[in-house]
């Protein structure tokens, strides 16, 4: 049965390979960075299993490794790789291979789609092929492997060349790849340190009395602000709902809970478009597309987010108290 853990092991193997190539080329710090990350990925299941069994030391070591990664990150200068050295060669290859080049690229979304739609029904000799947990992501990992094999066939290149090219891209992304995981961890630490309740207390203190409109506005802006801070609307939602949404808007002013919940969450999503804390959507794509400004994607999204927020807020105001 294919499980998401196998994907993590694949990632670990790829990270360790990247570390190995960097060792061979004498980039010591960079090699150490990918080595630590690879170990965290390979040992992650062990850490979680031991934690569940009440044994905290593997998790503590993992925490220490995260701090070591943070110390190594500033040594990893992100450099735009010399991409255009072979431009003529690539153009010739593009003319020769033509539309065949699209096939492996499209296999990534198509295989993922196939697994997402039909994965539950696939079985071999009575054994399900895919574990039900995280099936789409397991499908994505499988799709990546299939696309890698297909790409090597289409380009008539050896498989290890794909790994070498992938490693080149990974080095170009560098420490930015780490941010989504770190910010998720930061969100957990914030939650455990009571940052959420403190922000909710401040929002309540700023709340004007007696006006349903002002209360709704503080709720909506609070969702945006909190999402900007935490990088995730899911972390903001329970806090703002428990602080303002449920006791005041629903219970006191009679707001429709379905509308308030749904549109309140979407106000938070507008915050996600604005914050570097949502690194997987905003900073990693900027690195992946090799933008010179790491905040370029956020800048492109800014006015969309503002306009969508205003539209959502107006609709919520018109609908929620009916």
């Amino acid at each position, binding site marked *: 049965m294919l499980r998401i853990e196998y994907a993590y092991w694949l990632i670990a193997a790829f990270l360790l390979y990247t570390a190995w190539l960097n060792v061979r080329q004498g980039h010591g710090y960079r090699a150490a960075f990918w080595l630590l990350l690879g170990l965290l990925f390979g*040992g992650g299941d062990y850490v979680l299993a031991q934690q569940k069994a009440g044994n905290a030391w593997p998790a503590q070591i993992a*925490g220490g490794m995260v701090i070591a990664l943070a110390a190594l990150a500033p040594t990893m200068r992100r450099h735009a790789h010399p991409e255009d050295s072979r431009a003529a060669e690539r153009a010739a290859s593009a003319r020769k291979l033509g539309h065949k080049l699209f096939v492996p690229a499209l296999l990534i979304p198509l295989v993922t789609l196939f697994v997402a739609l039909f994965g539950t029904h696939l079985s071999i000799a009575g054994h399900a092929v895919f574990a039900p947990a995280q099936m789409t992501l397991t499908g994505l990992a499988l799709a990546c492997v299939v696309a890698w094999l297909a790409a090597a066939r289409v380009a008539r290149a050896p498989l290890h060349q794909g790994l070498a090219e992938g490693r080149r891209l990974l080095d170009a992304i560098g420490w930015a790849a780490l941010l989504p*995981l770190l910010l998720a961890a930061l969100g957990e630490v914030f939650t*455990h340190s009571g940052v959420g309740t*403190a922000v909710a207390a401040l929002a309540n203190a700023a709340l004007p009395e007696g006006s349903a409109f002002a209360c709704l506005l503080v709720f909506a802006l609070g969702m945006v602000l909190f999402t900007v801070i935490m990088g995730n609307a899911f972390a903001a939602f329970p806090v703002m709902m428990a602080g303002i949404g449920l006791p005041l808007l629903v219970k006191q002013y009679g707001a429709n809970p379905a509308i308030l919940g749904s549109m309140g969450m979407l106000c938070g999503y507008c915050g996600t*478009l604005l914050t570097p804390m949502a690194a997987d959507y905003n900073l990693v794509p*900027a690195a992946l597309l090799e*933008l010179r400004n790491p905040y370029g*994607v956020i800048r492109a999204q800014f006015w969309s987010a503002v*306009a969508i927020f205003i539209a959502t807020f107006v609709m919520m105001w018109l609908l929620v108290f009916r």
Partner: protein
Amino acid sequence: MNYWPLLGVAVIVIGFALRFNAVPVVVCAALVSGLLAHLPVPDLLALLGRSFVSARMLLLFVLTLPAIGLLEHAGLREHAQQWMGRLRGLTLARLLIGYLMVREVLAMLGLTGVAGAAQTVRPLLAPMSEAAAEKILPTLTDDDRDELRAVAAATDNVGRFFGEDVFIALGAVLLIQGFYAQHGIDLTPLSIALWALPTAIAAFVIQSVRIWLYQRRLERRAALLRDGKAS
């Protein structure tokens, strides 16, 4: 109420504002918040390590890199650009708005992992957008290319975010339903998901208008350039 852990948020704000390397800034913020909340150091370390490895799925995109790297080495981006150049009717706005539509509908069906910055934007959408923009304005600067790629990534994000809330079995709707259920209000997922539809439509219209305005800006610049040459 202990307000001191909020200093962790201040560390983040100052660190990002001064453009320090984000990785140590985030780790420092976590340590500051945790220590000011009087979490014991071993517990804080364990919390950091456990939550980091629990978020491993966020690095799944690196598995696309060997395939994408190999294809780019063989000229995928060049081919996407040449092909876009030949398609007369496909303008920049039509390409991006069409992608937005597909992305949002897929997200509404719960298929968010199908597309994304690594899966579709870098190998396909970004080079095609650049080629489509070159048809309008052949003298694109490096800044223009950066902005175009950013617009492509933004379009991908908007389509995904505001589509996924309409899907009933995805995180957001279930989180909302779960929260209300805990507090004694029973709602069906469908009734929650339905109210995400107005924003999904608004987001599509707003992003489409912005794409169209962006294309018009390029066209104006191209027209100015032509007038300058003609006179």
